[in-house]
């Protein structure tokens, strides 16, 4: 496989949403663009392959969203989930520039999903694209290629030649060959480092061996490390990641949406010692599901078991793996390899503490435990109706928060506070500036799209002027 010898205006490193948005925008601005995707064509697109919907500002309902979502409400949501760990200027820029996405994305080949039946399948804050993330990625690749962006697959960027904050070329390995690709500007949009288990081990030790990576195995963080080595200023807690509870039987990488488990609020969760360790009914699952990956990561062996009885079964989205099933709690413990007496004791203590109430999964109901530590604050029903089901769960890592600092032009900011003139970053590699903590559904794509476009525009401006 060959590596082009010519020189480009803009080279984009990465092949997901942010990279594609940068490449298409730079090309439109008149730049000669090369996009370097590390993955083979069949699995191109990074974690964007696994996405489903995007959050954006809109002032009224449309065929694709059920109501308005103002910039102010968007900002309040972001403040709430990050607890203030966000750069307000960049966050407000992202929100403001998301307002045209409803038109911009279809103009670049993406199709919105029409309501199937009434508005049952639509949301207010986020629009769903037809076919999900891979369909979106396919559309962007198609548009980029037709408009003249050069695309190389299986092109792994191993390093950047940078002098005094000025980018000269990228060192590219492809097949057995390697070479240098020269360009006037570079956009780094190559994701985080969540698939790099040795790097995760620097913070998590051997526990990282038990993590499931929900997305692409190609997010090794090589370029993130490279930018930091060239003096980029870091942002985001390197130890932190966004992780949900996934089925422990999930593939190590790329299991995506189907390995997620939504059974937690409808039963109890115990660790390897058969002990409960957190309030399963603290809040609505969509608001709380994101904390469970981190909770399980801190349990012995990084494993837990979500247990429901006949009452809970069928109340959550079907899972891709069948539950382990037994007629009694003791038998279930044997099936799971847990201490049967300990599990029976945990379940009995839980059942004794459940107060009667009116069970209602659509609201924060009054079914709760009393005198139990940790409590279950809502939807607490006794776990005593066979058959008993268990799902083994592990932390499923979606993305890491560590990134490089950028300014409003998407330029990478160096240790001395000065921006690198021709090094730009977009997507997960810089999302920590805006989403320093927590999670907001469909917001990763917002950051990637907005900063991809800014990076593409500014890189082209730098290169073509």
């Amino acid at each position, binding site marked *: 496989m060959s590596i082009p010898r010519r020189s480009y205006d803009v080279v984009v490193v990465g092949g997901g949403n942010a990279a594609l948005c940068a490449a298409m925008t730079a090309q439109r601005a008149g730049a000669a663009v090369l996009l370097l995707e590390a993955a083979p064509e069949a699995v191109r697109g990074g974690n964007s392959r696994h996405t489903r919907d995007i959050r954006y500002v809109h002032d009224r309902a449309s065929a694709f969203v059920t109501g308005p979502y103002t910039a102010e409400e968007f900002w309040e949501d972001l403040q709430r989930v990050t607890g203030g760990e966000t750069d307000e200027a960049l966050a407000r820029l992202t929100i403001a520039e998301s307002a045209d996405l409803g038109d911009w994305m279809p103009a670049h080949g993406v199709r919105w999903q029409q309501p199937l039946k009434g508005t049952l399948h639509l949301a207010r804050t986020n629009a769903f694209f037809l076919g999900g993330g891979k*369909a979106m990625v396919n559309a962007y690749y198609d548009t980029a290629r037709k408009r003249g962006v050069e695309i190389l697959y299986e092109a792994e960027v191993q390093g950047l030649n940078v002098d005094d904050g000025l980018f000269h070329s990228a060192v590219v390995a492809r097949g057995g060959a390697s070479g240098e690709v020269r360009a006037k500007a570079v956009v780094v949009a190559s994701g985080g480092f969540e698939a790099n288990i040795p790097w995760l081990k620097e913070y998590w030790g051997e526990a990282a061996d038990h993590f499931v990576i929900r997305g692409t195995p190609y997010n090794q963080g090589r370029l993130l490390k490279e930018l930091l080595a060239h003096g980029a200023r870091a942002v985001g807690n390197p130890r932190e990641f966004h992780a949900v509870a996934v089925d422990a039987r999930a593939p190590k990488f790329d299991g995506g949406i189907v390995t997620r488990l939504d059974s937690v609020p409808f039963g109890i969760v115990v660790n390897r010692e058969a002990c409960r360790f957190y309030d399963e009914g603290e809040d609505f699952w969509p608001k709380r599901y994101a904390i469970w990956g981190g909770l399980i990561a801190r349990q012995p062996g990084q494993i837990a078991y979500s247990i429901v009885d006949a009452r809970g079964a069928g109340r959550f989205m079907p899972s891709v793996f069948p539950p382990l099933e037994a007629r009694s709690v003791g038998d279930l413990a044997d099936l799971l390899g847990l201490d049967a007496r300990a599990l029976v004791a945990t379940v009995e203590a839980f059942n004794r503490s459940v107060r009667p109430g009116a069970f209602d999964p659509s609201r924060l109901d009054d079914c709760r435990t009393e005198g139990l530590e940790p409590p279950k604050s809502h939807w607490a029903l006794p776990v005593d109706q066979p058959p008993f089901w268990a799902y083994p769960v592990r932390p499923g890592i979606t993305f890491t928060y560590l990134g490089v600092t950028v300014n409003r032009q998407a330029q990478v900011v160096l240790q001395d506070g000065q921006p690198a003139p021709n090094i730009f970053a977009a997507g997960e590699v810089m999302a920590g500036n805006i989403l320093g903590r927590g999670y907001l559904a469909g917001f990763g794509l917002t950051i990637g799209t907005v900063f991809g476009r800014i990076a593409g525009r500014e890189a082209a401006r730098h290169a073509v002027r």
Partner: protein
Amino acid sequence: MPSAELVQEAARQMVICNACRYCEGYCAVFPAMELRRAFAAPDLTYLANLCFDCRDCYYACQYAPPHEFAVNVPRVFAELRADTYRDYSWPRLLAGLYRRSGLAGGLISAASVAAVLFLVLVLRGPGVLLSAHVGPGAFYRVVPYAAMVLPAVAISLFGLAALLGGAARFWRDTGGSLREMLDGRALLRATADAFTLRYLGGGGAGCNYPDEGFSQARRWLHHLVFYGFLLDLAATTVAAGYDHLLGWPAPYPLLSAPVILGTLGGIMLVAGTVGLLVLKWRSDPAPAERRMVAMDVAFLLVLLLTSVTGLLLLALRETGAMGVLLAIHLGMVAALFVTLPYGKFAHLVYRYAALIRSAIEQARA
């Protein structure tokens, strides 16, 4: 019945799809899937026949090969459909025709043409076959009226009975009562979806056919074939009316209704079948299934040859070639109708039944 392995594999894929649901906007299959938690053979047979093979879900799937989940819904459903056509064909003795549909289509066509030619040659003599005939009743001088009409009626009625019988058993096996089928609103919905080929539209994008790019080509070509076929049926019906009710036997002038309808239909059929064959030739084999491809090609070729011989007969009907061409064309028409219930044409009744079931289910949900 489909094999246990096939049922298990299709169910495995549906469990993955049901935990994902990203494709729910493409067609009727995924909303129907979402109404279910478990997938037994009848559910899968129903879902498979609801699938139009647009392939949008295959290219949009993050779990498609090389992913270890290896989800390939168009392919596994094509396998199930091939089994459906075989299992519900009647009489069962002829189900074997599905095993080698290409060979069967070719042999039956050849035999049918040869039989008509042979009969004309033996019963009417080479003089009749090879000389020009013009004026009212010219065709009947080559093939007598009764010999043309009686076999045609018999073959058509038999084919219709075989297809309706298969559809009724399919309907019952996939969980419906016959009374339920008489749901006016569902029938209307299903008929509209069938006549517009809504689900070859892929939620507005078109289908991924012949490759990953979106295109409406297959939908339009299928329309040409379907409506061309209907025009030719209409031409035949009008001609039968002229002959039986008005006492005006064929051939008819160029500007008569049967000739205009028939010619238009024939041209549409030729364009549509050639177009579909070209698309099929160029199509990505990954989401395709071998038996179904053979079935498609056999049916398209028989349709194409029937149309071409019909158009040739029209063009040369006043020459000495008319007798031979008429015999060949009638042989092809007979082959087409003999194979209708044992080839790809059968998809029409099962898909229509599945569309009705889907309309009923969605109205209830």
